């Protein structure tokens, strides 16, 4: 039973990490690739860690480190992704032509308009 859970968790984990890697190539511009790596890799890692937690938990080890790592990954990866996206936009890396709307720009205009009106 334990083995089954570990295998499933491992498989899911690997699947998402590989998915992230594939996204890295296939997606057109920085911002979309960003989603792939941060989101799916984090999920993939979580899967891995759960597998390890289950396996070692069953053997009676203290699984604190695994859970702590999951927490860390969930804390840091999104922040990293956010910072990169923000700075990419600020230094003006162009969106790919496929993108439909540039939300940041319109929000920026609103902010400027609100600013002018005061």
């Amino acid at each position, binding site marked *: 039973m334990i083995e089954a859970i570990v*295998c499933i968790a491992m498989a899911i984990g690997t699947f998402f*990490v590989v998915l992230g890697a594939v996204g890295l*190539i296939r997606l057109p511009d920085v911002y979309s690739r960003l989603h792939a790596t941060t989101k799916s890799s984090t999920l993939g890692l979580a899967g891995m860690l759960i597998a390890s937690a289950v396996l070692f938990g069953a053997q009676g080890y203290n699984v604190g480190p695994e859970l702590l790592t999951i927490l860390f990954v969930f804390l840091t990866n999104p922040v*990293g992704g956010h*910072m990169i996206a923000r*700075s990419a936009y600020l230094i003006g890396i162009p969106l790919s032509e496929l993108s439909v709307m540039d939300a940041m720009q319109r929000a920026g205009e609103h902010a400027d308009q609100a600013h002018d009106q005061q």
Partner: protein
Amino acid sequence: MIETVAQVCLIALGLSMLPAIYRIVQGPSVADRVIATDALVTAIMAIVILVSLTRNTREYMEAVMAMAILGFFGTVALAKYLVKGRAID
């Protein structure tokens, strides 16, 4: 059972590092390279976890934890560097 699945996953993870390297070398902008490095680090962490699973040792947990916490250090530093021209002001 675990052994075989782990082997397959390891090969898959190994292969998944290649696109990251491709993006690092090729990546049009620095931001791509940063993301690719992040992806690479995550893949490395996954492999280390799997290896420690197959070898049934818990020694590598420190390394994995460290990578988890500090993986984003480089990203954040570079992000700030790109915008501000200096990472620590």
